[in-house]
Every structure is written in C-alpha cells, then in structure tokens.
C-alpha cells in the first residue's frame, strides 16, 4: 500500500469521524497537525484510531495517538505495521 492510498483512505475515515469538519477532506495533506489543523476532538481521535485499525487491519497497541504530530507520521506508522 503506497502513501497516496493510505492518505486517500485516511481522508475517507476523516469524513466519517468528523461530520461537521472545518477542513475539506481533499485539502488534507501529510504535514497537517491532527489536533490544531484538522480540529479533531478526543472523541474524533478515538474514532480515527478504531476506524484505522479496522480499515488497515492493524493495532495501535504500542503507541499513543499523541505520539503523532502530523498526518505523515500516522502514514509512516501504518506503512511500518503493514510492512
């Protein structure tokens, strides 16, 4: 799975997780911060974790979501898990 595929899937999950999103999912880029740029609350973050685990068939078991500063780092983590 390449980075663009993962980013595309993350955009889909973002739409499901944040119904009243301030940022359009097409404008999400790898350098965006999850909390400040995407305006996600704790409940949105929890939804993202659960949905990503389901969609990518991985477990965020060895990290806290606070360890990721931007979308790119989440993609790195998913790629490492899928490798």
């Amino acid at each position, binding site marked *: 799975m390449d980075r663009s595929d993962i980013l595309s899937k993350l955009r889909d999950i973002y739409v499901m997780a*944040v119904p009243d999103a301030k940022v359009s999912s097409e404008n999400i880029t790898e350098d965006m911060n999850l909390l400040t740029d995407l305006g996600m609350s*704790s*409940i949105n*973050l*929890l*939804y993202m*974790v659960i*949905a990503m685990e389901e969609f990518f068939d991985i477990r965020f078991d060895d990290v*806290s979501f606070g*360890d990721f500063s931007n979308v790119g780092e989440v993609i790195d983590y998913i790629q490492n898990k899928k490798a």
Partner: protein
Amino acid sequence: MTKPGRLFRYRYLAFDIVKVLNGIPTLLIFRPKIFYENEKARKPIRGGGIIATNHKGFIDPVKIFTVIFYRRIHCMARKEIFEHSALMRLVLRMGQCIKVDPENPADTSYLAKIREYTADKRLVAIYPEGHIVKDGEDMLEFKLGTALLAASCKVPIIPVYIAPRKSIWNRMRAAIGEPLYPYSEDGKMLPMADLQKVMEDLTEKMLLLREMTK
C-alpha cells in the same frame, strides 16, 4: 487468549474472592428488585458487552455487581482514583478495573484492556455521563465514547438504570434494557453520525428505564 466461558480460572481468583466476599452482604443489603424493558432484556446476558449505567456515587460498581451478579464485570476508573491510596489501588487491581486518563485524550491504552476483557466474554461497566450525578439532578448528556468502545469491540451496549434508594430499608430498584448494537449487521464501523443516533437511543432508553423504577 484464554478459553472463554469457563466458570473458574486462576487469573480471576482474586477477582472472584472479592466478588463473593462483597457480593453476599451487598445482595442482602440492597435486595435488588429488577425490572426489564421487554422479553429480550429479560434474557440472561451472555458473552462480552458494555454495560451503560447511570452514575450516582462511588458505590455504583458494587450496585452493578448485585444487579448482574452472575457475571464478571469490570469497571473503568479515572487515574486519580487509582492514585488515591494504596488500599484503593489494591482493591481496583483485584477488581481488574481499567484505568482511564481523561486529561490525556490521546492515550487510548485502555482500549486494549476493554478489548481483552470483552473478547474474553466479560462485561465492562461504563458511566456514559462521565461524572457522578447527584440525586434530584437530571441525567447528563451521554458521551459518545460508550458507543465507540462497544463498536470497537463489536459487542452490544446493555443499558442498566439503578434508582437511588429512598432509605436503607427500601429495596434497590434497577431496570435492564434491550441491548443496542453500535455497528452494522456485517460488523463494520458506522459513521460518527450513526453512532450519535445510537447514543440518542441509549438516552431515551435510560429515561424509559428510570420511569420503570419509579
């Protein structure tokens, strides 16, 4: 993964000792009178699940044990309660409670624990209001986390309302509702808007259960 469904396991020895020692006197003290929303709710609760219940005080975990006395139930507790005293920490550990840190929303380590327990066909009690609500006050808005956790574990939410006792001489009245399923029929994640609807249904159900206990 341990085999689910066994009555006795060494890993739950401490938990079961606490439950039995605590359970017999509390059953006698509270003498719960239980109401059911319908016939589906009356069926014994089997398998893993999330118990969503109202929060009136620190004794609520004991009350929930008396309402569903035939199952192992684990409660979630805030980090501060674990840090309260050594005795409290010991009791919470023996009860295999799940530590949550609301100040650190990015820490989702509790999720793994809830998954482990529910996959092992155990029940986890959650207070969707998030805080203790004193007698006479209205129920607070239910937080979405309950639906999300149940969706993540693919287990139903079982609503349980426990009414405050008028005096120590009265029996404790509780009502159990029909389970809610916060995931699609094929077990897939629902969009957040649908989970919000599940929580609205849960709120309505809890109000109905509250009426039943009056």
